[in-house]
């Protein structure tokens, strides 16, 4: 630095000597600054300072420059921001909204899954209940006579005699049929129908007007009585009963038809009536 002009009159420059790396700009600025300081010092010495000192002007300029640069930078950022940042913000907004949506969906899914599991358990219980009930309904339905049944058994055909013997000797009465049905139960029948009318605990065999009625419907002879049961033993057991004997008498003495035939298969309809008007069950079976 010995070749450089030594201008350090106002301000000490401790680092100026021996600094070989000082760049041109720095040099210029430093010189300018130093020059300013020099000028200011000179002015202070010459005049009493009615005009602003030169270094102040410089500082303002530097600040202005800094401000300008800052402003430019800010402007630059502000100009780029709406493009990049707005897109970014929109992305983030979408991400957050999708995240929220997914959270909601997952909550819905969890509660749905819960509900479905419970429903499945309920249904499984219902199915088990239902199966049990169905089995009970079947076995009770056969016994009650509400279900149609098929099976081996007997078919009994009875008919009035072709001619009138005495007053009513040749005509089958309701009590004759009652006793025949009664005898079939005795002989081990499981289900009985008289002219396709299932005998239930509610079924009455009566005489109304000129005809026998079953379930309040008039029948006309011949009457066909079908019963499921052991086809091998039922006919014999039937004939052994008092009613069976009585019917054999009727056949012999009044020419009434009384025919008992074992069958491989008889079909007995059900009586669909399954509502009660007065009786209420007390306790399950």
């Amino acid at each position, binding site marked *: 630095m010995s070749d450089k002009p030594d201008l350090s009159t106002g301000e000490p420059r401790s680092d100026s000597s021996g600094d070989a790396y000082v760049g041109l700009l720095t040099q210029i600025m430093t010189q300018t600054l130093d020059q300013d300081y020099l000028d200011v010092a000179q002015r202070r010495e010459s005049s009493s300072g009615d005009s602003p000192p030169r270094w102040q002007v410089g500082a303002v300029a530097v600040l202005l420059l800094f401000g300008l640069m*800052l402003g430019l930078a*800010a402007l630059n950022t502000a100009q780029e921001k709406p493009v990049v940042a707005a897109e*970014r913000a929109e*992305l*983030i907004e*979408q*991400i957050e909204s999708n995240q929220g949506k*997914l959270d909601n*969906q997952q909550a819905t*899914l969890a509660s*749905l*899954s819960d*509900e*479905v599991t419970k*429903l*499945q358990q309920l249904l499984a219980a*219902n199915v088990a*209940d*239902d199966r049990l*009930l169905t089995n*009970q*309904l079947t*076995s*009770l339905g*056969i*016994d*009650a*006579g*509400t279900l*149609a*049944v*098929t099976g081996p058994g007997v078919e009994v055909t009875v008919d009035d005699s072709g001619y009138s013997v005495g007053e009513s000797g040749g005509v089958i009465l309701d*009590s004759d049929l*009652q006793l025949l049905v009664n*005898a079939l*139960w*005795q002989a081990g*029948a*499981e*289900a*009985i129908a008289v002219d396709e009318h299932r*005998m*239930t*605990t*509610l079924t009455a*065999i*009566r005489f109304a007007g000129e005809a026998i009625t079953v379930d309040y419907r008039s029948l006309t002879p011949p009457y066909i009585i079908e019963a*499921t*049961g052991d086809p091998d033993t039922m006919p014999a057991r039937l004939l052994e009963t*008092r009613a069976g004997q009585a019917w054999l008498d009727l056949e012999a003495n009044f020419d009434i038809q009384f025919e008992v035939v074992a069958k491989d298969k008889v079909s007995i309809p*059900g009586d669909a009536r*399954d*509502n*009660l008007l*007065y*009786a*209420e*069950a*007390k306790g399950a*079976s």
Partner: protein
Amino acid sequence: MAVLLAALGFAAVAQMRLTGADDDYSGQRRENLIELLESLAAAADRTQTQIDELEQTREELLSSSERRQIAVEEARQRLEVLTVLTGTAAAAGPGVTITITDPEAAVTSTNLLNGIEELRDAGAEAIEMNDRVRVVASTSFTERDGEILVDGVKLPSPYSIEAIGSSHTLSEAVIFRGGLADEIERLGGKVSVEKADLVEVQSLHSIDAPEYSQPTES
């Protein structure tokens, strides 16, 4: 001065940064964000599909469950009726209590069967004899050595019949001209009918599983 300015500048930059990234994604690049958005959309699609499927399942289960519930409820009601009809459950309701005296031991099983048929005709829904035997469809009336057996059970006189149904209709059926009362009186016995708002039929009929009868396939 320089320090102050630097601090100011730093603060300004920091402020700008802050306003631009007030979220968790400050470290993420744009491509990452787009990728995240896409995978979120895919996950949402998958979840929605699952939700749709489950909702359908739920609807099916609900309607199925509801139908079953109704079916089970109906089945229970039918079962209740069947237990009364088959005599496997006790029954209660309005009805009559009939007492039959037979001082001359002239009453036959046929008389009693005829009386039961009259009660059935009058709409009896549950019948019991002598508080011992439940009268059902298959109940047989027989005699052995001058004694009356109902379903094989020896019943001594006086006979009592409890029947549930319309008490008026039932009592009319017994006392109508030529009916059970007339018939028994003709045999030297007496019939009294007592109407009641509550008749309890307690005795039960036990059923065996049918051996020969199968429900008819419809």
